[in-house]
């Protein structure tokens, strides 16, 4: 039987590129929070302590950028207070609306305590923040995972992949900002960063292997759904190829001696590849998957508007991050800590 669609509506994407931005920034913020909470236990001058400043800066910037993108993803951003007027415990999004401000407050508190060099309190706050960070990873993953109508999202591997690619991006972000902090790239513990990067990559690969295994055994319907896309559509084959290539590229880059990462150009490249792959992964998960019809044939074309709901919004968010970064770097250069006399190194 051959079926040709004669007249069907075009169903628009209900989640805009803002969603990509939110999941990108919140993924980085939550995994950086977990990393920073652990790093805070390092002795002064240890490798951990040397990575902490970069982690704190990444945390500060993304913890502010994330809620801004989330707000912009609402078509009625002015009504955000409805979330708090009508608590809805059976909706992950409502639960998230309560977890997010708590997490952001703890994250900002953590950054402040680091700046004030209040070590004991920093560690305690770090623990609370880590707990919230886990809940953020759970809620953001579950929120998308529970959408049965989209088989490609409806898999336990989705929260996992959000988390581990988020961590990859977080480490890339630390590598990126480290160069602008006091001490520059030379002060960064490259070997530690390299090892963490490889661990994150291994976790990504592990997720993929589990997905392929459970999918082949018929336990995960998202797998055949993805296979069908790869078979039918060249764009999807292309994104598969891109994912594999960027994974291999990162592995090759991180496998090289840590000293290489000290080079300004090389480390910039590695950082951008790590950040870029996590961002593109989210773009595919949100924008490309929304182009897969729930009922109809073919694909819906998403043409990105150039304004606030599209390109301008994306660039604007990166601009906001840059502005925050400049401000933080400026402050840290002048006042490395609130009490310079007590500062570590």
């Amino acid at each position: 039987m051959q079926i040709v669609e004669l007249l069907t509506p075009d169903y628009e994407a209900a989640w805009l590129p803002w969603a990509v931005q939110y999941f990108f920034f919140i993924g980085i913020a939550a995994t950086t929070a977990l990393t920073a909470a652990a790093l805070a236990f390092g002795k002064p001058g240890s490798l951990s302590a040397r990575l902490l400043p970069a982690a704190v800066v990444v945390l500060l910037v993304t913890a502010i950028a994330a809620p801004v993108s989330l707000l912009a993803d609402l078509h009625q951003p002015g009504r955000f207070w409805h979330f708090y007027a009508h608590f809805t415990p059976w909706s992950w999004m409502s639960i998230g609306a309560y977890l997010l401000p708590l997490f952001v407050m703890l994250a900002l508190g953590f950054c402040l305590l680091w700046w004030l060099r209040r070590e004991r309190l920093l560690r305690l706050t770090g623990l609370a923040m880590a707990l919230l960070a886990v809940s953020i990873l759970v809620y953001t993953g579950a929120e998308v995972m529970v959408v049965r109508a989209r088989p490609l999202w409806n898999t336990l591997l989705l929260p996992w992949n959000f988390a581990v690619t988020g961590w990859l991006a977080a480490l890339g972000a630390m590598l990126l900002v480290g160069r602008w902090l006091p001490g520059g790239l030379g002060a960064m513990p490259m070997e530690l960063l390299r090892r963490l990067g490889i661990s994150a990559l291994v976790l990504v690969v592990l997720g993929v292997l589990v997905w392929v295994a459970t999918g082949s055994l018929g336990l995960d319907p998202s797998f055949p759904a993805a296979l069908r896309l790869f078979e039918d559509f060249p764009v999807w084959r292309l994104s598969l190829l891109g994912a594999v290539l960027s994974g291999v590229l990162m592995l090759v880059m991180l496998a090289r001696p840590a000293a290489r990462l000290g080079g300004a150009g090389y480390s910039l490249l590695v950082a951008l590849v790590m950040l870029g792959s996590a961002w593109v992964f989210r773009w595919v998960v949100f924008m490309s998957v929304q182009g897969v019809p729930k009922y109809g044939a073919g694909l819906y074309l998403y043409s990105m508007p150039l304004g606030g709901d599209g390109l301008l919004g994306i660039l604007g968010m990166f601009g906001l991050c840059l502005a925050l970064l400049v401000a933080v770097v400026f402050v840290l250069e002048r006042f490395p800590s609130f009490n310079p006399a007590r500062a570590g190194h």
Partner: protein
Amino acid sequence: MSKSDETPSTGRRGLLKDLLGLSAAATLLPLAGAAQAGIGDQPPRRPGIEGKRYGMLVDLRKCIGCQACTVSCSVENLPPIGQFRTTVLQYEVTETPDAPSALINLPRLCNHCDEPPCVPVCPVQATFQRTDGIVLVDNERCVGCGYCVQACPYDARFINHETQTADKCTFCEHRLEAGLLPACVESCVGGARVIGDLNDPQSEISRRMDAHKDEIRVLKPGMNTDPHVYYIGLPEAFVNEVDGQAGIRLIAKH
């Protein structure tokens, strides 16, 4: 129907449990349980037209694809140009290479599901179901998050470009309440759409559904949404997903 007097879900208790679970979550495993327990359960329904459970029966053999329903719905409910609460999808079907092609007209609208996945996801309870089965959106409360649009397996919802809130078919509840038929039913040239009370065994829809028991199909039964828009004459190939060639699309412009 069986679900109309459903007791309130275990939502609140479930949340507490889940949050405790979250704090202990070192792995993502508790997630699967949480997603199926309290979180995601249907909230209690709100009062509707007493004692009724509305449903619609669409007899595809009688649909001529004239789009009178599409037009009258748009006139009645005034969605922005290019956005539709109901529309008739049209397909050309060729059984064997040398057989003549047939035209399939498939009217689509909200199914007013008995287990509507669009309802529990709404973070502000702007989307709700009434005891008479009708699923509605309170567009004064809706924050336009688009979560319900994602959750509906039937593409029945959209973000209205003018109100920037979720929009969908209401079974013309404002007309039903006044004793009128929905605009699409009223204007249907072939008499393909029948709406009525499924709780009343004597209603026209109940009698017709009885008479055609074995030919009745719903869309995507595998989604376990229990749709309350029923079709007579829906080919098997159209039940789940259309595996065919994409054609012209009506594109909504901002």
